[in-house]
């Protein structure tokens, strides 16, 4: 790959700077407004009742008791639920899943809404919900991966991944002189953004205005509009800040639709905010998987085959099958590659995309299998990966748009001090006698783009307003996108007013797939470029401008002035150009998406290498991650401070995946027994020490106009395997199930 830009995008002084986040001041002073912070006049509070069985029917609700409670204003059940125009089983937009909105008395999983209570106060609605005291006709619940037959997945787009096969898989197995056949399991995980799902809904005639945390404002407008039979333009969403999303906040969910329906029915604004316990139900999760990996190598330790079969748990009534096995595509240069998916239908809520969907679970298994294969080959795991380094995309032979993975391996290993690592396990102890181990994993993440639009308005004073309905769920859109916009206009950051987080703005697309900065940023970049192009035309045609007659010469914009390219003596200020033209403002529009033919030409991925150190108590088997180094190559980094924070956050999610997170069902009731933060563990500060991120320079002229690959998810990808492999290196035990628990090691 060329390591220079074919057509370098000129960037000014804003992008690439570790600018402190612009939303920081609102967030540290408590003035950043999240959905549930809105309380319009005359508000009603909504609380829904979650089913406490996992399969069956609701046979009785004590509606009279709830209605009699002071302050309760309405009890909504399947018996009296007002009509919805849309079909709850339809999928009006991309990523949609089937929702429960009291369409009947059936229960499909524990935690499903079975009634909604409205009250003048939150306390009244909560107590009313408690008084409903449901009775059920329950059927046996299927909640474990072996509780029902697995079936192959019928490929069909989102949620129904197709299998992939390259090369002669049977021949690959046959050619192997050494082989492994291992099965890894991953647990159900729930997104649990710190801000639970919420909505504040207000109707005015057939116009709906919503405060709702959304990772895709315009798409969500269309989704809500569908259920209420109104045009999408009638729905307005305000979502300046999201308290985390992680994939769970892109689409309308049942509870939110019910609250909106209640607002319509009562003619009053309604607020609903899920409790933490309710986050373990109707708002998606990462489905459990069981993955079988068969790897083979020849005498030179070259992979002859990677054969990856994934079995994923999904709901009984909808399709989202974790595309875990596809994590084996695109990474190692195996002679043959196969990914296959099967699903088992259980009485659980429908899973959905959760930070690094597919890759996180799939890579956890793949990277452990690679470690086991390296062990069988008797060579260092890093050396093993280098021997199987793919110079072009395995199977397809497509070139990578850029790939600095080798540099990630080298810089990460150097920083970590990998070279002294003993090959065999149980060789290292620290001064306190703790078993010490080092492990590594490779990280890979695709670079999808969605579609986005943006508008830039240059004002007569030379400042600019840039607008797109971009989403900040914590990643730093308010800052990074403003930096891109400022550069596209040749303005200092403080001359740019950036508006986002509102659906009336040009469509900012989807904050997901690690593609938001590239997509919304691309649209902003194009909009700024459109302004500069028009400005150039005006100036070139203006006899009084120093740029007059510059004709087809390219212009560049810097510090509020337009220059003839390569001739700094000829320039004119934005404000003067506009003033002479008698224009109060100049508007430019831009959009960004990826042409399908570009997607065909190149394999586009971010890459990384993660190295981990763990210490394990030899008697108690308590595991602590004591050090991690992640080196990532993700194209252009717009804001190093924000990018590092994203990558660190991802690595901490890796720790969480490897050691903490697991939703556990009671097989008798089908309920999740640890559906709160007391029982569902995520890392606290004390679990996180010694993390370090390196970003490896990468110029990518093909991935998109800005060369951005995205950093939101890749941090988790190699980290899980690195930790599990370090645990093996410390203890000699392969625990093939996540999270790795003390009891697994005690009984290993």
């Amino acid at each position, binding site marked *: 790959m060329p390591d220079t830009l074919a057509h370098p995008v000129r960037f000014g002084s804003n992008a690439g700077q570790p600018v402190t986040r612009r939303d920081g001041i609102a967030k540290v002073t408590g003035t950043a407004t999240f959905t549930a*912070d809105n309380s319009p006049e005359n508000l009603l509070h909504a609380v829904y009742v979650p089913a406490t069985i996992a399969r069956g029917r609701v046979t009785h609700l004590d509606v009279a008791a709830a209605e009699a409670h002071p302050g309760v204003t309405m009890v909504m059940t399947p018996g009296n639920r007002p009509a919805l125009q849309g079909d709850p089983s339809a999928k009006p937009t991309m990523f949609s899943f089937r929702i429960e909105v009291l369409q009947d008395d059936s229960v499909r999983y524990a935690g499903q809404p079975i009634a909604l209570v409205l009250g003048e106060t939150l306390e009244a609605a909560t107590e009313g919900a408690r008084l409903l005291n449901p009775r059920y006709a329950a059927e046996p619940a299927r909640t474990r991966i072996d509780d029902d037959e697995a079936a192959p997945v019928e490929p069909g787009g989102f949620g129904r991944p197709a299998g992939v096969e390259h090369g002669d898989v049977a021949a690959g197995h046959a050619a192997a002189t050494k082989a492994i056949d291992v099965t890894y399991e991953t647990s159900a995980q729930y997104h649990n953004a710190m801000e*639970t799902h919420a909505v504040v809904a207000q109707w005015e005639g057939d116009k709906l205005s919503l405060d709702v945390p959304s990772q895709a404002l315009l798409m969500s407008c269309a989704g809500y509009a569908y259920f209420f039979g109104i045009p999408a333009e009638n729905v307005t969403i305000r979502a300046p800040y999201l308290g985390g999303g992680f994939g769970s906040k892109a689409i309308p969910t049942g509870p939110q639709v019910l609250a909106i329906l209640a607002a319509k029915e009562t003619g009053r604004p309604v607020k609903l905010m899920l409790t933490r316990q309710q986050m373990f139900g109707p708002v998606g999760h990462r489905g459990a998987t069981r993955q079988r990996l068969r790897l083979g190598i020849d005498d030179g330790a070259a992979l002859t085959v990677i054969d990856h079969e994934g079995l994923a748990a999904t709901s009984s009534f909808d399709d989202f099958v974790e595309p875990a096995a596809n994590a084996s595509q695109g990474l190692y240069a195996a002679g043959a590659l196969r990914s296959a998916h099967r699903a088992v239908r259980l009485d659980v809520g429908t899973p959905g995309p959760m930070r690094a969907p597919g890759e996180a679970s799939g890579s956890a298994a793949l990277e452990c299998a690679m470690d086991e294969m390296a062990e069988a080959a008797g060579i260092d795991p890093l050396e093993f990966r280098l021997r199987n380094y793919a110079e072009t995309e395995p199977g397809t032979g497509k070139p990578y748009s850029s790939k600095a993975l080798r540099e990630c391996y080298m810089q990460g290993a150097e920083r970590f001090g990998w070279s002294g690592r003993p090959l065999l396990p149980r060789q290292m102890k620290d001064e306190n006698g703790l078993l010490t181990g080092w492990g590594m994993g490779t990280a890979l993440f695709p670079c999808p783009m969605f579609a986005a639009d943006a508008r830039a308005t240059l004002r007569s004073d030379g400042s600019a307003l840039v607008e797109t309905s971009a989403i900040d769920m914590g990643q730093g859109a308010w800052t990074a996108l403003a930096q891109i916009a400022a550069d596209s206009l040749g303005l200092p950051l403080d001359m740019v007013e950036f508006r986002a987080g509102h659906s009336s703005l040009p469509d900012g697309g989807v904050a997901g797939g690690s593609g938001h900065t590239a997509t919304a940023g691309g649209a902003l970049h194009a909009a700024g470029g459109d302004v500069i192009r028009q400005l150039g035309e005006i100036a070139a045609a203006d006899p009084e401008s120093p740029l007059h007659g510059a004709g087809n010469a390219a212009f560049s914009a810097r510090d509020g002035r337009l220059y003839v390219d390569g001739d700094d003596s000829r320039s004119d200020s934005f404000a003067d150009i506009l003033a002479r033209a008698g224009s109060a403002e100049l508007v430019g529009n831009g959009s960004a998406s990826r042409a399908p033919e570009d997607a065909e030409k190149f394999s586009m991925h971010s890459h990384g290498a993660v190295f981990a150190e763990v210490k394990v108590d030899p008697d108690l088997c308590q595991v602590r991650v004591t050090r991690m180094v992640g080196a990532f190559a993700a194209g252009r980094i717009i804001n190093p401070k924000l990018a590092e924070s994203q990558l*660190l956050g991802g690595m901490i999610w890796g720790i969480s995946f490897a050691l903490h997170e697991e939703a556990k069902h009671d097989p008798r009731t089908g309920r999740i027994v640890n559906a709160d933060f007391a029982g569902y563990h995520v890392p606290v500060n004390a679990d996180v020490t010694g993390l370090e991120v390196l970003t490896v320079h990468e110029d990518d002229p093909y991935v998109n106009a800005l060369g951005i690959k995205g950093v939101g998810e890749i941090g988790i990808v190699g980290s899980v395997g690195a930790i599990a492999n370090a645990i093996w290196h410390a203890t000699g035990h392969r625990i093939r199930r996540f999270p790795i628990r003390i009891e697994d090691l005690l009984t290993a």
Partner: protein
Amino acid sequence: MSGHKLSLVVNGERVEADVPSNRLLSEFLRDDLALTGTKRGCETGVCGACSVLVDGDVVKSCLSLAVQMNGREITTVEGLGRVGALHPLQQQFMEKGGLQCGYCTPGFLMAAVDLLKRNPNPDDAEIREGLSGNLCRCTGYQGIVDAIRSTAEAGHGA
């Protein structure tokens, strides 16, 4: 639910209120006083998003009833500092990137005030241990520790 007369000081201002006995302090602050900087994250005392100071000590407002606050003095994130007059911790959380989505931030700030009051010069392990009652899902842990360390180093610990 019968009302109780309540007299307390919130962010330096005297507040008189009539609250039902089952109203949580977190809801009282957010709904009755419109101090929405204090967040709800779990209502079971685990996540720390609702942390406030009561008579200078950190308290999880989701585990306290408003009626218990008669005669007490409460500080929420809104009372910690404001634009133009930020508390040193607020400044450092911003500069060191101790936040992403910011939902956990008010709670972490209040816990950090309490931590530095008890231990003006904590080492990193003490900072991490001291923040074990607060969750950040995003997670900005590294930046949070950096922010508290630099606040302490600048002598703003006490």
